């Protein structure tokens, strides 16, 4: 044993350990690159057939070999943005509560519950959305919106229970823990001296939050929101279960629709040739979009600035790797 230990660690043999870890790291990079390459290469036929019109036409007809991604793109953007709009005030409010208001001894258990929400498998959120939220929306909120605001195009049509609104709400709940945990982490990174300095000027807790905590964590919060957006855009299963899967430009928030991810989930098992290639082109787009969003988020965490959010970046980065997309 002793001899083996010495061989692994001592003198020139130290190199062995070095190369083993290097190999593992390179393997990971190679894996990411090869996934991207395979998906991209296989999407090439669809790109050659449709080019930019893939992104500008809205007919998706596998029978006629006609593929335009506009409905899926729109569905993705609308659900993700709506989800973020609902989740942002809730999660920032929760983060402020956890970081600034809740007594010290309650902070850990409550933060743990929030992080637990992030660990719930998305299919469980999907089931909840389908069996709890959708029926409730059909007769409750959805019906109410259709009855009272149905004259507005975005609330037109029958309240089906499944559709854009339901998917957005499920997504909002799914991204909430990510945004809450990361922005809370950033807020806790604001140095105590700054809080106390503001209190000592005669500020209320509300003023400390709005004038010191939020402004000095704004880039970290922006990063957290982007990670949430990335997750909402990429989410497949839960959305597929509640969005209604109609490959149309959504007529209203109550109507069924489709996202890029849900379209792939729905059609991948039966797709071949150009149809398969079109789905992989969607996947490539999804890959690029989420990559860009994550890069911007990382830039927000790491950008050189006097922003105190930077002080919390280490832990934020750890969270990002654990939960991001």
């Amino acid at each position: 044993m002793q001899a083996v230990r010495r061989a692994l660690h001592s003198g020139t043999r130290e190199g062995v350990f070095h190369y083993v870890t290097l190999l593992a790291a390179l393997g990971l990079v190679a894996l990411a690159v090869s996934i991207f390459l395979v998906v991209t290469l296989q999407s090439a036929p669809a790109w050659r057939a449709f080019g930019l019109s893939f992104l500008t036409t809205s007919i998706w007809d596998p029978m006629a070999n006609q593929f335009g991604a506009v409905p899926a793109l729109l569905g993705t953007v609308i659900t993700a943005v709506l989800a973020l709009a609902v989740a942002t005030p809730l999660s920032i409010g929760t983060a402020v509560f956890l970081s600034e208001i809740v007594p010290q001894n309650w902070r850990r258990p409550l933060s743990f519950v929030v992080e637990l929400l992030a660990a719930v498998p998305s299919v469980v959120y999907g089931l909840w959305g389908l069996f709890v939220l959708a029926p409730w929306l059909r007769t409750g909120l959805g019906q109410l919106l259709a009855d009272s605001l149905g004259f507005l195009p975005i609330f037109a049509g029958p309240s089906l229970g499944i559709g854009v609104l339901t998917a957005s709400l499920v997504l909002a709940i799914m991204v909430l823990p990510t945004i809450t945990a990361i922005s809370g982490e950033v807020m806790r990174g604001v140095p105590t001296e700054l809080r106390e300095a503001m209190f000592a000027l005669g500020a209320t807790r509300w003023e400390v939050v709005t004038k010191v905590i939020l402004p000095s964590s704004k880039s970290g919060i922006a990063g957290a929101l982007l990670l949430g957006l990335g997750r909402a855009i990429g989410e497949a299963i839960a959305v597929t279960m509640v969005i209604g899967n109609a490959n149309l430009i959504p007529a209203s928030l109550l109507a069924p629709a489709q996202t890029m991810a849900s379209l792939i989930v729905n059609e991948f098992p039966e797709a071949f040739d150009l149809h398969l290639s079109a789905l992989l082109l969607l996947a490539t787009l999804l890959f690029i979009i989420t990559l860009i969003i994550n890069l911007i988020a990382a830039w927000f965490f790491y950008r050189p600035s006097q922003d105190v959010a930077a002080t919390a970046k280490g832990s934020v980065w750890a969270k990002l790797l654990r939960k991001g997309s």
Partner: protein
Amino acid sequence: MAQGVNIENFSFWYGQSQVVKNISLSAPVRQVTALIGPSGCGKTTLLRSINRLHELHPGTRAAGRIAIGEEDIFSAAVDPVDLRRRVGMIFQKPSPFPHLSVFENVAAGLRLHGLAQGKEIAERVEACLRKAALWEEVKDDLGRKGALLSGGQQQRLCIARALAVEPEVFLMDEPCASLDPVGIMRIEELIRELKHDYTVIIVTHNMHQASRISDQTAFVLNGELVEVGRTKEFFLAPTDPRTEAYLTWKIG
């Protein structure tokens, strides 16, 4: 309007442990009172009780009386938020708001309390920066971030920020602990200036600093006030043997 501070039979607890034990001390108006003592002796806690900053932490408890002027700061009529405006505080670590410019750091308190509007804000900011002996160094670029100044400049910026809301008392918690000798000298000069208009209570680990800038010195040990006296007499002829031991580095 400067006010004296009167502490009577004041005690303070963190949970079960009592860190300030029945201290009575009077900080005369327009004088500098220095609190000295070893780390963890309770002097900072005492200081932070004067603007009720410690109440922000759960599980703390205070007993006794602290009066600013004639007013008991623990009376039901006193709003701690309002009290903190009337009591300026300077911390050990310079803490300008990093997202704000030099100008906005000083204006923060003015805006918070609506003490000035429009052009008046700029005048008040300039006056406070002059009073804090920082104006000449920053007047050409008031828009730069406060965090880009040197440590000593940051601390003077914090003093200017505290001056803006016109406090009656200045509390300083080891304001020179993180500064270089030049920075320390500038702050000490400033404290000697400030005492013409304000009552200053300063916690310091540096006994030479206490002897240089204070009119009155109080020695705190294990939460108790051991001795208080005019600074000159305190250092030349301490009456308590524990004070003498501390001054000659025998304890602490």
